């Protein structure tokens, strides 16, 4: 990960020093290679194997789609390979995978996402996925390419994420996780979901303490990991060496080399990961601007996009970063995340889906006038007014 950050720094330096570009020209379409992502996870019966091609310039890639975990390749900027034979072999035999359907798509739809089901009911009679043993992956594509790999699943019972959610004041609290050492685990991956992308860090230790002020060095502007108003999941997974090698390495932008690839015949990963610790936290912080922060309710709007939101000044200053949660419908209790900024009195709020900064549902622009926020939603005609509730602190 240090090398990954250095590669990012090199890319930044590249952008800085080579601001002049010229001579854009077409180049030849390259022969594609097979890419496989497969991670054995004893916490689920359905093992996912993603089979796709490298981007070779053969087709235009659709960008800007909303990501769908059921359809990760198509919605994630990839080219799926359909009709592949996917098998995982272990001490109890071989289990064959099938290409998973995508809700709302026809049966002929190509997702490139294969499910290899272990330990299902009698109808399938598949053996269970065992821990501490070696498995072999084999993927054969319709055009005859074959990709193989092997891995050992860390020997630990997976922890299922509980329903308990703690309030986490990032100004005063820290998140501490501990776990026991795991046989066949090469490393432990600490992962924190955040609106600016997951924070990932490998550690060889069996404990970690995460300060509320922690910054995400994977985020484009080094935003903080913990954002007030968001429910964020903190998890630790025991991973094998394939997983560790693949995700700690990356291809640098200059030479296109660097990924540690343990597959034969293709690029990617056949590894293993076991969730061994997990917590969810509702992130809050101490007040910074009571006159501005707090609960805001919709008062005037031509169409109800957001009924209520809770606003925090995530980072004071000029410009100031804003965050919080919002509810489209106060009645159903479902809360989503919100980010924004305030610069020279102008306020922009982005209401998110899936708590992801790249997945915006609506954007509000306006200004504060006393206890009112007055503005408009992008793409929607008509004035919008939010009223601040009286102090809740």
């Amino acid at each position, binding site marked *: 990960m240090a090398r990954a950050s250095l590669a990012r720094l090199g890319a930044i330096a590249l952008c800085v020093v080579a601001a002049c570009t010229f001579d854009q020209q077409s180049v030849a379409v390259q022969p594609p290679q097979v890419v496989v992502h497969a991670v054995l996870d004893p916490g689920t019966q359905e093992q*996912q194997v993603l089979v796709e091609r490298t981007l070779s310039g053969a087709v235009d890639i659709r960008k800007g789609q909303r990501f769908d975990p059921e359809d990760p390749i198509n919605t994630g900027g990839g080219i799926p390979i359909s009709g592949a034979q996917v098998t995982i072999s272990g001490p109890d035999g071989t289990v064959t995978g099938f290409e998973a359907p995508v809700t709302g798509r026809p049966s002929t739809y190509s997702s490139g996402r294969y499910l290899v089901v272990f330990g299902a009911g009698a109808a399938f009679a598949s053996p269970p996925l065992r821990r501490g043993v070696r498995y072999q992956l084999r993927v054969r594509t319709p055009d005859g390419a074959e990709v193989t790999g092997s891995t050992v699943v860390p020997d630990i019972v997976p922890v299922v994420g509980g329903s308990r959610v703690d309030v986490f004041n990032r100004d005063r609290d820290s998140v501490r996780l501990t776990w026991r050492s795991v046989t066949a685990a090469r490393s432990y991956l600490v992962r924190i979901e955040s609106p600016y992308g997951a924070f990932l860090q490998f550690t060889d230790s069996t404990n970690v303490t995460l300060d509320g002020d922690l910054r995400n060095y994977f985020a484009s502007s080094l935003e903080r990991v913990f954002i007030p108003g968001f429910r964020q999941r903190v998890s630790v997974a025991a991973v094998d060496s394939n997983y560790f090698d693949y995700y700690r390495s990356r291809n640098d932008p200059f030479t296109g080399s660097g990924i540690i690839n343990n597959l034969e015949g293709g690029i990617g990963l056949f590894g293993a990961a076991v969730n061994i610790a997990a917590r969810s936290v509702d992130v809050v912080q101490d007040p910074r601007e009571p006159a501005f922060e707090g609960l805001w309710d919709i008062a005037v709007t031509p169409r109800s996009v957001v009924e209520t939101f809770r606003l925090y000044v995530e980072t004071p200053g000029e410009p100031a970063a804003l965050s919080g949660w919002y509810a489209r419908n106060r009645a159903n209790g479902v809360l989503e995340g919100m980010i924004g900024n305030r610069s020279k009195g102008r306020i922009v709020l982005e209401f998110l889906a899936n708590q992801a900064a790249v997945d915006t549902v609506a954007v509000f622009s306006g200004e504060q006038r006393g206890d009112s926020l007055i503005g408009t939603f992008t793409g929607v005609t008509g004035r919008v007014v939010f009223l601040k509730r009286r102090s809740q602190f």
Partner: protein
Amino acid sequence: MYRRVRRSARPLPPRDLPRTTIGVLLALLLVALSRPAAAQGPERGTLAGTVVDDSTGAPIPRVTVQVVGTTRGMLTDERGGFVIRDVAAGAHTVRARILSHRPRDVAVVVVAGVTITTTIRLVAAPVTLGAVRTRARPPERDRFELAPNVGTVTLTPGAMSGVPAIGEPDVLRTVQLLPGVNARNDFSSGYNVRGGESDQNLILLDGFPIYNPFHLGGLFSTFLEETVGEIELLTGGFGVRHGSRLSSVLDVRSADPARPGLHGTAGISVIASSLSIGSASRNGRSSWMLSGRRTYADKLVSALSDRTFPYHFSDAQLHAARAIGSGNARVELTAYAGADQLDGDFTQLGDSSRAGGGTFDFDWSNQVVGLSLTDVWHDGARLPLLGRADSVGAEQRVSFTRFATALDLGAGALALTNSVHELRAAGAVHWHRGGHERRLGYELSSYDIAYDVGSPSTGNQLFDLRQRPTAQAAYYQESWRPTRRLLGEAGLRAEHVTGRGWSGLSPRVSAKWFATPELAVSAAAGQYAQWLHSLNREDIPVRVFDFWVASDEFVEVSRATHFVLGVERWLGPLRFARVEGWYKRYEHLLEQNTADDPARRGDEFLDARGTSYGFDVLLRQLEAGPFSGWLSYTYALSQRTEGGTGYWPGHDRRHNVNLVGTWRAGRYTFGARMGVASGTPFTDIVGQVVRRAYDASTHDYGTGGFAGEREPLGGLRNAERYPLFQRLDLSVSRAGTWRGMTLVPYVSLVNAYNARNVFIYTFDYTRNPPTREASSQFPLLPSLGLTIGF
């Protein structure tokens, strides 16, 4: 035989060197500096002064100043100063001569026991070739006649000042234009010498080591132009005095002010402002110079806007020298400190969407402090084992060098640090008799190297390395001239490095045979070792910073063997041509292993071997007269093999031509540089792969809407070549005077016709057809500045 005498020789009264029964080894530690007072009796005085241009007032270096009717004389230094001691009291005529000006005689009266100071003003005149005899010769000619000088190039500030540059002249940028030297691209002031990697070059400041002497990620060097007295570059086959690097030695020597009274130079350019002040004592026995420089773009941006420019660098350098006693003993102090700071806040960069952004701190710094003591005894010495000598010299050096980098992202979210400390003691004793020189020397270095990567915010240490090796070296060298036509030099260097427990012998020989007084053939061969290595990958064209590690139980000592054969022909007193062919063989070249496991020591490097061969051509007109410059051409081929796979290293450049010229016409000086070079290798990008992150807590890929990043896929390593590089740089300056100060405004145009030289290609395989776009090296870059001499 050529000898390095720091001051002009002057006669001394006869004395006997104290006898000692201690062996030769103790002679290395002998630094007897006290001696009887010099014989400047009541009948003699000293004549000092400065030679300046009559119209501009600018000091003129390398003027022959002679007391007519005596053997007393010398060349003026870079500041036009001269000091002639031991002149008989009374009336004399002092004659000053240089090709570019009319000779002038000045009447002086020397007073016994007193230093008389005078200023000699010369009028510029057209150069006439013919029977112009000068007593003094350029140092290049001395080296040609008196030493094998294989692969040796010297530069003076006069040579550098005429080379167009961005802002002020830059030492390393000028070095990149010399034969055998390859600059990877416009953005790097690092360099590769005769096919060697960029960390194989030993860089010295007054003989003291300095690491990574670059600013702004390699755009500029740390050497302040005003402080430079002379540069010597040894591109291969160098002798046993230098070790610890495989390819080259660059020795940057500080200027030594000779003019009494406080004087200096202030400079303003588009990059930085600098100030240099210095002085010499009236008796010429001591001098000092202090210089400083700082960029000011950050201050300007802050003053003129509400934005921030997060980068600046600053340097300071001190050089002081003092004669001790009444002989040739001399003590010198050199100190340098420089720092780069790239500290910023993403909130202040870009628009309001970056609100909430974090801070980044990227700092690196260099410090060097060194002390040297030298002495030379010229008369009848007799040393044990070595016998009678015409002169004996001794030198002792001690220095401390520090280089450190620190990168912090997000106030402790990720932190990398690397530091190298080197404490070095070195010394030598040299014995001369007739055309025979013997030199016995030693070098002791103690290193402290630290390399840390971690996340202080999470208490996670990702990598931690601490090394404290020492290196010891002893060397013996003989230089002799058995016949008028033949020069020879042979030496043996013995080295030992702890940590690795490595010991090695490096024999080195060189010879020169004169077919005629103007034509000589030279040859050299030698073995070299290196135990400090940069973790930089040579394939990556951007050299952001170097991480240094030492050879230890896991990391080999790199070795190289050089073979050099050359011909040099002088075409007049100030012009020569040289062709040198070379072949280099490398073992245990170390390349960063991108797949290294941070939990495992010993896999940080991959072991490679390789060869480089080629030839350099240099045609040079030295800096006297209205025109000077050089034409250099290098043909080079480098190959490497690692793990059974052969490849071209990233710095392999087949052809490299540089034409550099400076014209002085009255008050104006015009400079030009035309560079043409064939492209260096690169790895073609043949596709992109989307990396998908699996989350074991949700059993899904790409949660939170982040599907995965696209990363480039490289093809065959370095199988492609960038296109031809070409660049024309122009500059003009005009010297004037105002209220006793010399004002020299200058304008330069780098890449005068805006040639589009490819720095790197970026590819997009997400569309059909896929595309490739070039990022350029320097565009047309005008710059201007002003130098004020006072």
